[in-house]
């Protein structure tokens, strides 16, 4: 290999190994006297122009840097599947059905105080966001679901959420009061006989039925 070729290798190794960009003077100090530092660097820059790493000028010196277009591919994205806590999914469901809904209203519906992290988790997941305020003392923020929420759960829009009737039919919402517990134990098959008395006071709970500005009533079962 020619001397120039060897010098080029040396510049390559120096720029590679140095923890800091090396300026022309620093390179010259390590090359034979009278070396064409500028020409060597230019040649090396050209060699690496379209490569995965490039020779770039940084803070007055020369350094190797990975090609900017590859930056996103250098990092490995690892997906961690995690289950939502019961509190989180319940809160999400209540926001979905009752939006816009304040934190206080969610707590009222759930009957428990919302843990600080619960809404954060849902926000982080990109499924809920605060939007607007309730025009009541303190002007509490109201929460709504996001388009990502619809995407994740495969819904076209909020009206796709099954109404309470449908939930009930699917066995997801059994509103039989506990007074009938004995009956259910005695003859469970009788539970769904027609003419059931628990009329659907939940019926108007469908999403979209509520006016946006109006807080939905938290439901009190009729008595």
């Amino acid at each position: 290999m020619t001397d120039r070729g060897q010098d080029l290798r040396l510049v390559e190794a120096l720029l590679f190994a140095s923890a800091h960009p090396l300026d022309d003077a620093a390179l010259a100090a390590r090359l034979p006297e009278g070396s064409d530092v500028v020409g060597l660097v230019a040649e090396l820059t050209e060699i690496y122009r379209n490569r995965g790493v490039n020779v770039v000028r940084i803070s007055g010196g020369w350094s190797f840097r990975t090609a900017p277009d590859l930056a996103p591919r250098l990092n490995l994205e690892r997906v961690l599947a995690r289950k939502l806590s019961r509190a989180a999914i319940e809160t999400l469901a209540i926001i979905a059905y009752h939006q816009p809904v304040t934190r206080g209203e969610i707590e009222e519906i759930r009957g428990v105080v919302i843990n600080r992290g619960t809404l954060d988790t849902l926000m982080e997941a990109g499924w809920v966001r605060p939007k607007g305020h309730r025009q009541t003392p303190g002007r509490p923020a109201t929460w709504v679901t996001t388009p990502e929420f619809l995407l994740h759960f495969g819904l076209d829009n909020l009206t796709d959420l099954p109404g309470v009737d449908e939930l009930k039919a699917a066995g997801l919402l059994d509103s039989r009061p506990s007074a009938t517990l004995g009956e259910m134990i005695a003859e469970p098959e009788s539970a769904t006989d027609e003419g059931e008395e628990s009329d659907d006071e939940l019926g108007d709970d469908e999403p979209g039925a509520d006016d946006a500005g109006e807080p939905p009533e938290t439901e009190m079962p009729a008595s």
Partner: protein
Amino acid sequence: MTEEPFEAAKPATPPSSELVVDLEGYEGPIDVLLTLARSQKVDLTKISILQLADQYLEFITELHRLRLEVAADYLVMAAWLAYLKSRLLLPEPQPEDEPSGADLAAALTFQLQRLEAMQAAGVRLLARPQLGRDVFPRGAPEGLKTVSRVAWDATLYDLLKAYGDSRRRTTGSVLEIRPAELYSMDDALARLEKLLGKVPEWRSLASFLPAELRGGIFGRSAVAATFAASLELVRSGRLQLRQDVTFGPIFLRSPPDGG
């Protein structure tokens, strides 16, 4: 890369009987033996152990003569070599439970070979291009990151189930007071009173139960309430009851005179 950065280089000249009377620079008795063995200038496998033992004992004697302090390790080795020598010179047969002199000599040869091999390996190892001395890694690696993204695992079913659970839990606790699930005596009384005077013939009590009668506790409450109501109507003379056998069906009719 060839120069060895060792603190204590090996003694340049191996000690013979008349020289080096110093243990400086030796790494123990086997190292001394190894150095002495090299002076025989033959392969370690062909070395004369007897001669080596003599060389060593001579070396130790010389140290003693010069009143140099000799570490116990070296003296133990001297004693062992003296023993080995006697075993090598002892005529056969050997005592049964002891290894032969040849076995012991072979074991010593192995020791010497092994140490020599390790000494050589150490030298070769350190002669390799070393990181940070001969070869260098990237001075400023950008580093590769592993970005963790949490994918929350929740299905539509989970969502709806959670909503259902929530609703059931909160509404259920209030619904306990809902009274409509039982057929009350007032209901039965009202119903029977409507039918008074329209039942000239005996009819079973069961046929007076509400049409929407369901089974279970509601049905039983209807039977009980209707029976209690019928007793009340009988007491006021507006109804007649009849039961032919114990646990048999109960019949009722309007009094023949119409009440």
